[in-house]
């Protein structure tokens, strides 16, 4: 801080806060949670409807446009919400910096791979590939 900086230190902590990301994490966690309330209930109903479905009818159900769309939305939102939640758990309990950072990056890689693999699978089924 230079001598002619009249800004009070608390001013720097407010607004976007010391991490400079503001309430982005908190808010995104809530928005994905709200989406998942609807999507998770829909997913449970979809799975219950497919209990005794054979391979062909299960594929046909996933291939229906609305089901394919909502499935992709569900899986991507679920992984997104999971990363935000796991991040907080790791930050709370892993106190060795290199382990913490490695885990934070690892869960992001895993979640991205999981989400992409699911999207690809749904697209393959929906497009009949």
């Amino acid at each position, binding site marked *: 801080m230079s001598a002619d900086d009249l800004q009070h230190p608390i001013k720097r902590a407010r607004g976007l806060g010391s991490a400079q990301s503001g309430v982005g994490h908190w808010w995104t966690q809530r928005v994905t949670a709200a989406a998942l309330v609807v999507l998770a209930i829909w997913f449970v109903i979809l799975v219950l409807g497919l209990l005794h479905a054979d391979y062909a009818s299960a594929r046909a159900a996933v291939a229906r446009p609305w089901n394919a769309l909502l499935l992709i939305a569900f899986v991507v939102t679920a992984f997104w919400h999971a990363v935000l939640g796991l991040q907080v*758990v790791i930050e709370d309990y892993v106190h060795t910096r290199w382990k913490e950072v490695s885990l934070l990056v690892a869960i992001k890689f895993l979640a991205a791979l999981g989400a992409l693999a*699911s999207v690809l699978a749904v697209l*393959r089924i929906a497009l009949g590939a």
Partner: protein
Amino acid sequence: MADTRRPLSPHLQVYRWQVQMVTSILHRVTGVALAIGTLLIVAGLLSLASSEQSFAQFKALLGSPVGMLLMFGWSWALFYHLCNGIRHLVQDTGAGYAIPQFVRSSWLSVIASLLLVIATWAWVLMAGGAS
């Protein structure tokens, strides 16, 4: 540990157990479990996209005793995290922080999640069991 001389708090072992503690801890535990459980959904979708044979293997895995236990645990974790998550969203508006309301909504999350899991599995059994 960066600096173990810092004061450590809260001392969980000296607290009397209260339902609010249980719901808070369970929310984390079920959240982590669900994050891992999401990989089951990925496995299911991949097997469905791949071949009839691999989908049959996936269904056999879920139908095995271990698979059924996983599915039962996953369904309860989902319903609990869902109910308690809605409770947290309501509390994020600033509502329900008076202690009696807080305790009541904690119990509501637990009981509603149990009712939902019982209703779901009753429906599965009536539909002729999971296979």
